[in-house]
């Protein structure tokens, strides 16, 4: 018995150190990569015309932060992303839930969505430019289209996935249509709807970058495109870096939001 207790103690401390080591490795791996990149660039093992040293990219980043250019472009892109997500996401949410609750609504819209969903969203950019012109409208529209599909599809799937016993409870307690929507359909489908939103925001980020490269005078996509035109490779990397950061921060924020609005979800 006593040998078992003695053996158990170091095992536990080992388990803790494994977790700590994992976290340490997670931080260390990108730093090591950047260090190797930096050294390789300085020693000209890699072509600095394509892969400039991280230190020179950071120098450009600081310079662009000071001039305000980076912040302005980032905010412009974020604004388009937010408006697009709202304009595309809200109708998708309502339509998706209605499709999940009502077979007739589903019968009407299902084929339309199935037919338009496979069209690459980037391929409708020329059409968006034609309709909405070079201004904000076409950018916001692109994001809205990107967010719409995953949200509408996930909302329908989410509602259809609600266990029929909950709908029976609603009927037994005489919940009307509106009450059924608010107390059963929406909360019951919310976890699946949230993953639809996350997916949609990711697609929206891709589309905003593409849309800003063509026919825009601001935004991160525009910034990357002008960097290519002026062959300012460091600026290009700054733009890519910013998009990566936005993607990362949005994922963290949406996960937090999910934890906040879905407190019943098991961890």
């Amino acid at each position, binding site marked *: 018995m006593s040998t078992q207790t003695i053996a158990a103690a170091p095992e536990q401390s080992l388990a803790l150190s494994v977790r700590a080591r994992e976290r340490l490795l997670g931080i260390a791996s990108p730093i090591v990569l950047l260090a190797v990149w930096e050294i390789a660039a300085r020693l000209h093992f890699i072509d600095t015309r394509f892969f400039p040293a991280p230190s020179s990219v950071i120098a450009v980043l600081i310079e662009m932060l000071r001039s305000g250019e980076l912040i302005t472009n980032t905010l412009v892109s974020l604004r388009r992303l937010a408006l697009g997500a709202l304009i595309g996401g809200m109708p998708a949410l309502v339509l998706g839930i209605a499709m999940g609750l009502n077979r007739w609504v589903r019968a009407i819209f299902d084929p339309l969505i199935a037919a338009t969903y496979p069209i690459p969203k980037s391929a409708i950019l020329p059409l968006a430019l034609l309709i909405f012109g070079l201004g904000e409208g076409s950018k916001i529209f692109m994001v809205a289209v990107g967010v719409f599909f995953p949200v509408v599809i996930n909302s329908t799937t989410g509602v259809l996935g609600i266990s029929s*016993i*909950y709908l*029976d*409870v*609603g*009927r*037994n*307690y*005489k*919940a*009307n249509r509106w*009450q059924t929507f608010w*107390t*059963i359909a929406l*909360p*019951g489908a*919310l976890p699946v709807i949230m993953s639809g939103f996350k997916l949609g925001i990711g697609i929206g980020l891709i589309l905003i970058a593409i849309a800003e490269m063509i026919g825009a005078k601001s935004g991160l996509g525009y910034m990357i495109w002008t960097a290519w035109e002026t062959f300012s490779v460091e600026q290009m990397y700054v733009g890519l870096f910013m998009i990566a950061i936005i993607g990362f921060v949005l994922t963290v924020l949406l996960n937090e939001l999910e934890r906040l609005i*879905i*407190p*019943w979800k*098991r961890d």
Partner: protein
Amino acid sequence: MLPGTMPHDLPNDLSKPDAMNQTRTNLRKVEPVAAAEHQPAVAQPAIRIRDLHKSFGGLTAIGGVSFDIARGEFFMIVGPSGCGKTTLLRILAGLETATSGTIAIDIPAGSERPENAMVFQGESIFPWMNVWNNAAYGLRMRNAPASLIRERVSHYLDRTGLARFADYYPHQLSGGMKQRVSIARAFANDPEILLMDEPFSALDAQNKLLLQEELLHIWDEQKKTVVFITHSVDEAVYLGDRIMVMTAQPGRVKCFVGVPLPRPRAIIELQKAPEFGELIHRIWSELRDEVQRAREQENQDAVQDNKG
């Protein structure tokens, strides 16, 4: 007089001309009921079912049942699996419609209560609502005043031992506690009739016993009409005033067995009573043939499935 002392044999000629009327009538007035003369003890039937049929496609789930349930009666339905007892309860709850036959639910004049509330088999409380909001659901859906909701919900959470867990979400509760929430939700809604579909079947034996006793305690407060489905003969005798035994599919009434055991009942004490053993024996002997028949049907179906 105990409801259990009433004569239990229901004549077969109950189907009156109104049996073809398929609508679900909600008699608002207490009227003399034609069937009362055949069942003198059920002077004030809360539920009157006549010649009820239900089929799904070619399958007859319920093959014509007729019976009365008295006001305030704790009515048990026992039958082999697949005898249509859950379907019968779902028809009573308004979740299914009968193929033919009538159900008349008598609601006293001036009653503001909802007609029924169901305690479902399995997990039916909403995972996205905490215990309080789950228990308040029925009252909220009919826009009850906030003070009434507060009073009723706290009363029944108290009675079910859940007062401390009002803020908990279902995933933080055990199976027994979840079923308590479901019972609190049904009672808090204060219906005329409580419908219970094997509410304790998923629980372990010890928890089941506790909940059965609690249910009896809560029921003793108001003595609502209860229709309770079970496949457990013991449970039927513990809880019921009268037990209806159903035949294997298609479900029909096999017999009624009164339970003349005094109330309030202590379930553990009940097991010592000689009447208890006799009742269990009697119901089991009625049921055995039906369970056997249900099993043969299942075997036949399996053979046919394999051929096809």
